[in-house]
Every structure is written in structure tokens, then in C-alpha cells.
């Protein structure tokens, strides 16, 4: 089960299991974003490199206008994946 919600203009919430079969669903929401936003990970149990790629693409696109994603509330397993990928250097993780 995976859900993505645009809570407000500046907040996106991820829920459940973000695997390669959910890329189109997630991209639809991230592609509509045109300003800095916080992505809430509190209810996200799992993410694979397919999910990381969606976030990377969004961060690269937003950075052209000086905007950025902030990632918040990761569980320790998810956070470790971001660290192994070196994504803790290209995202603010709080």
C-alpha cells in the first residue's frame, strides 16, 4: 500500500511502501510542485532507489529556481538508505 498526499502548497505526505510500481503515482504529485516543500516521511515504511530517483529529479528541477525539498520524519531504516546513497548531502533531512 502506498499513498501520497499534497497536504498544502508546501507539504507532501508519503504513506506506506514506496516501491518501483509507485513511481508514476508519486511523480504526478511531485511534478506539480513548483516551490520549496517539506516531504513528511513519518508514515513511510519503505522506499527503494525508484523512490529516491523521483526525489532526486524533483530536487534537481526545483534547484534551478532556488527552491528545495526538505525531508522530515524518516524512520532509521529509510534514513540509512538516504545516507548510503549520499542523499543526506543534497537534501536537508530533519
Amino acid at each position, binding site marked *: 500500500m502506498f499513498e501520497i498526499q499534497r497536504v498544502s502548497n508546501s507539504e507532501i505526505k508519503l504513506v506506506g511502501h514506496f516501491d*518501483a510500481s509507485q513511481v508514476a503515482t508519486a511523480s504526478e504529485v511531485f511534478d506539480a510542485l513548483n516551490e520549496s516543500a517539506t516531504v513528511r516521511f513519518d508514515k513511510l515504511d*519503505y522506499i527503494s*532507489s525508484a523512490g529516491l530517483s523521483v526525489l532526486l529529479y524533483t530536487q534537481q528541477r526545483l534547484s534551478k529556481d532556488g527552491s528545495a525539498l526538505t525531508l522530515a520524519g524518516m524512520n532509521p531504516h529509510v534514513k540509512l538508505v538516504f545516507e*548510503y*546513497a*549520499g542523499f543526506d548531502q*543534497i537534501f536537508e533531512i530533519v
Partner: protein
Amino acid sequence: MEQSFGRNLDSLAELFAFLKGAAQNYELDERTTFTVNMAVEELFTNMIKYGSGGDAAIEVGLDREGDQLVVRLVDTDSEPFDLNALETVDTSAPLSERRPGGLGIHLVKCLMDEVNYEYKNRITRIRLVKNL
């Protein structure tokens, strides 16, 4: 435990259900379960992407051997794709130079203790070991 899966992303739900059953059967902790889910997804989707274009199923097997969990993926109709010959991912590159390619395999190598690749007669066999 062993099961075959159709080579498409729609099989992922079934694959994760299988891995959940294996995790319960072998009494894996939360971190190991997460790690195994991720490694198997990355390699399974890789086999779909870089397969021969045929419809041969992909076999996934897990066994607990003492203090090790051994994971096997077998694709019986594949092109060569040596995981160990891939370029290293630069995890310190600036944002503008980051590319998603190779990231999944990089994570598999970080998360598992052994990654073995074998290709013979169109058959790809990947064997992963996670120390428990």
C-alpha cells in the same frame, strides 16, 4: 522457500508478500527484513529492465543457513549484466551531477554482506548473503 514471479512491476506486490512470509518464517528482525526487501526489489527490477525481452519468470529463493540469510535470484533468459563491473556511484557529487543510474545496485552492495553474480548459457544467477 522459493517462488517464481512474472517479469513485470505488477509482480512486486506478490514478491513483497512472499518476502514477508519468509521474514516471519526465518524470524528476521525489522532491519534485516527492510534490507532484504530492498535488495530483492532492486535486483528483480534490474532483471526486468535488462532482460532479453522474453517472458521467462524470475525465481527468488531465501534460505537461512546458520547465522546467514542466503538470497538467490535466477533469470533463465537474460543478457549479461555483471553487477560487479558497474561504475562506482559517486555519492559525494553535487546535486546537478547526480544520476539515478546504478544507485539501486550501489545500495544492494552497501546493504548486503556478499553479492555474487554468475552468467552462463543465458542464465543469470545472483546470490546474496546477509549476516544475521
